[in-house]
């Protein structure tokens, strides 16, 4: 009987903690106030080429500010700067910035308040002829590669900015002036968030107010071969004194991205410490349709992280990082071994990456699952307890009634 009691108490505690954790697990209630400005301080006669802009999203916290700068002068780059003051602002010396992107023409003032800065730059789109159907550009011969599309040479159409209550979304699309891009474009959508949440669209990455999400898609491009597959190259620029590595986390929960059980975090941490200062997070999945269903998912893999000797051709990065920045790059390639579907079948491929500061967010169970498990396991358990008590009492009563008083 006492063992029953102990078991019962433990199961109740487990269920209660589980429910509590479920509610509290997602409780990153830290909020920021986001304001978006376009080309701060740009005055004639300085002018940017058409479609090129510098978007500054300022996420103000209680005693710090997070600046996200998206600029497509040169290769499109997303610059993240964290300052420990609430008064910091982005300042651009436009003439130098536009003409030569000289170091220092983009800065966050006051410079003494800057604690961490990092940038993500999309540099190239690689296309290769996958004759062996391995979807592995590392294993494909150099001769199968077509010449890459350099994003710094792209021509961009006008920027689109939308904002609703909690999210600010900036979309930009560009193309190269070649036949392949006659009907096609590469688009980037930056979402800056005020609070924690999750996108409805797959891969439904969990974000918090310290992160922003970049959704990249390649649509309508004419592939140069029937068996063409694509890979996207992007580079991360950061201050010296930081190391980078790609961590993989396996999770049992694939509720939000069905059949994907892994998350990759490209983390940046100081050389002599193990705490993560910044991250880029993605799930190894890309989608072949704008409104994907389960079968439109295709796995993607990343190449090993390599150091890059030259700073990428992106104005924002060249202008901001003045002291010997460290550049690392990797390729995300789309498709899996023996995948019968190629880019030419749907002419659309999209991928999402989350970029932010601090520890990368981690998924937890939704409350629905916790409720189902609690009710599902709890009800039979309760009946077993009640029934067990009932059976024991019954046994005791029948035993008691065996004794007849000897009068």
């Amino acid at each position: 009987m006492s063992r029953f009691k102990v078991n019962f108490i433990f199961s109740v505690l487990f269920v209660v903690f589980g429910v509590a954790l479920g509610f509290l697990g997602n409780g990153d209630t830290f909020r920021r106030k986001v304001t978006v400005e376009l080309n701060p301080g740009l005055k004639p006669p300085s002018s940017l080429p058409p479609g090129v802009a510098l978007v500054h999203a300022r996420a103000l916290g209680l005693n710090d500010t997070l600046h996200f700068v998206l600029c497509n002068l040169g290769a499109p780059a997303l610059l993240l700067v964290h300052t420990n003051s609430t008064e910091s602002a982005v300042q651009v010396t436009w003439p130098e910035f536009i003409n030569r992107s000289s170091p220092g023409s983009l800065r966050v003032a006051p410079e003494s308040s800057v604690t961490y800065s990092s940038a993500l730059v999309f540099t190239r789109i690689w296309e290769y002829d996958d004759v062996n159907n391995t979807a592995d550009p590392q294993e494909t011969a150099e001769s199968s590669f077509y010449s890459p599309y350099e994003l710094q040479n792209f021509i961009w159409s006008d920027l689109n900015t939308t904002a609703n209550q909690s999210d600010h979304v900036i979309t930009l699309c560009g193309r190269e002036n070649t036949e392949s891009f006659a009907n096609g474009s590469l688009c980037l959508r930056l979402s800056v968030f005020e609070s924690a949440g999750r996108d409805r669209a797959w891969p439904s990455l969990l974000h918090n107010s310290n992160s922003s999400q970049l959704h990249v898609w390649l649509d309508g491009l004419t592939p140069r071969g029937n068996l063409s597959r694509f890979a996207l190259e992007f580079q991360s620029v950061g201050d010296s004194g930081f190391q980078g590595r790609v961590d993989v986390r396996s999770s049992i929960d694939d509720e939000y991205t069905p059949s994907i059980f892994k998350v990759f975090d490209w983390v940046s941490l100081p050389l002599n410490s193990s705490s993560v200062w910044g991250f880029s997070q993605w799930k190894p999945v890309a989608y072949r349709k704008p409104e994907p269903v389960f079968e439109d998912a295709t796995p993607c893999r990343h190449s090993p992280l390599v150091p890059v000797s030259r700073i990428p051709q992106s104005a924002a990065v060249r202008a901001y990082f003045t002291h010997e920045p460290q550049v690392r790059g990797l390729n995300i390639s789309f498709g899996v071994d023996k995948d019968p579907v190629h880019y030419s079948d749907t002419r659309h491929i999209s991928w999402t990456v989350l970029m932010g500061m601090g520890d990368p967010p981690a998924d937890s169970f939704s409350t629905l699952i916790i409720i189902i498990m609690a009710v599902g396991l709890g009800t039979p358990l309760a009946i077993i307890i009640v029934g067990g008590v009932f059976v024991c009492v019954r046994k005791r009563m029948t035993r008691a009634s065996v004794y007849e008083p000897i009068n």
Partner: protein
Amino acid sequence: MAVREEHRSILDEDEEEDEDEGSRHLSPLCDPRHLLHRILVLVFMCFLGFGSYFCYDNPAALQTQVIQDMSLNTASFMQLYAWYSWPNMFLCFLGGFLLDRVFGIRLGTVIFSLFVLIGQIIFAAGALANHFWLMNVGRFVFGIGGESLAVAQNTYAVNWFKGKELNLVFGLQLSMARLGSTVNMNVIGWVYGRIQSLTGSAGHSTLGITLMIAASTCLFSLTCALILGFLDRRAEKILKKEQGRTGEVIKLTDVKDFPFSLWLIFIICVAYYVAIFPFIGLGQVFFIEKFSFTTVQARAINSIVYIISAPASPLLGFLVDRTGRNVLWVLLAVVTTLLSHMMLAFTFWNPWIAMCLLGLSYSLLACALWPMVAFVVPEHQLGTAYGFMQSIQNLGLAVMSMAAGSLLDNKGYLFLEVFFIACLCMALLAVVLLYLYDYHTEGELNLSASTRAERLKAE
């Protein structure tokens, strides 16, 4: 495949055999009374069901290929299983009737084998012609033949092997069924690969050719049915005995007399099997995605439930027969299956452990649950009770297969596993209630074997 073959058909085992004293002297192999001839008949009887078990799980073993070649989503894929179950909702009642009154056992077996063969051919033709609706029609026709063929197999067994040999024969037939499923799981993928390298590409025609090759096992089963029919007719002429009958009498009005325990047993049956068969149907891709298995490994682990069930069923059946206490064994089986699903859902532990547990508990439940029906229902209602149990089991499987497919498409594998766990919790609830009800009414379900034997003697 639904567990038609797993319940002992409680038939009258004391039929008298007519001894024909004027029979010619035949060689042992040709003499219907001699053991050697009956072993020959046993071989054909066992292979009778091989084709239908082989082809039943073709979709599960070729899940990725079917989905890719026919451009399906998982919900549509699971329709292949749902369409197999739909006709069996009604055939469970009609099967015995058709075999006894309308066709007779021999002709009936041949007809049902033909349905199995034609169904599989239509299924393959649907793949060749790239029409998914035709594949569903094929599975429907296949389903008409499949389950009724199991009834016929049981009837042949009872007719030829009475008394103590019957349990062994049932056990062998069950093992052959499992062997068919296992061979399918591990071989058909390889066949597909060979066809693909021959034709040079994957696609619906490769799938169609592979399924046609699978249909050859159904042709083999049809041949066995024809030979069995011939041997049975010959034996009837030599021994001058009647055609076998299923002995099942179905009267739908009996349903209102079913006791409460029986309804609880029905709930356990439905809730348990919907957590097994749709899981195996969708299991291959689960193991590939979550545990990073290769396709070959995923197929092997998916078939482990059947591989274990083949030797375990007779052993566990013997155990349950010796000890009695069926309800406790059912409880143990449900709890073990629940644990195994929880391991698969919430941990990354080696899934071989969970799947072996699943195989053992699946066999245990079959041995302990189906005989319970005979303890709560009088003999003249047994046919109706089993027919009803099969029928709602097939209804449950049909509906839940499609639900499982669409759950997976929208919410992923964890949610699907939690759904299966919820079904098992319902089964667990029913078992606990059954135990308490049986205890309260002092019923027979949970008696030990010795007590049961005493009670039988006292009657």
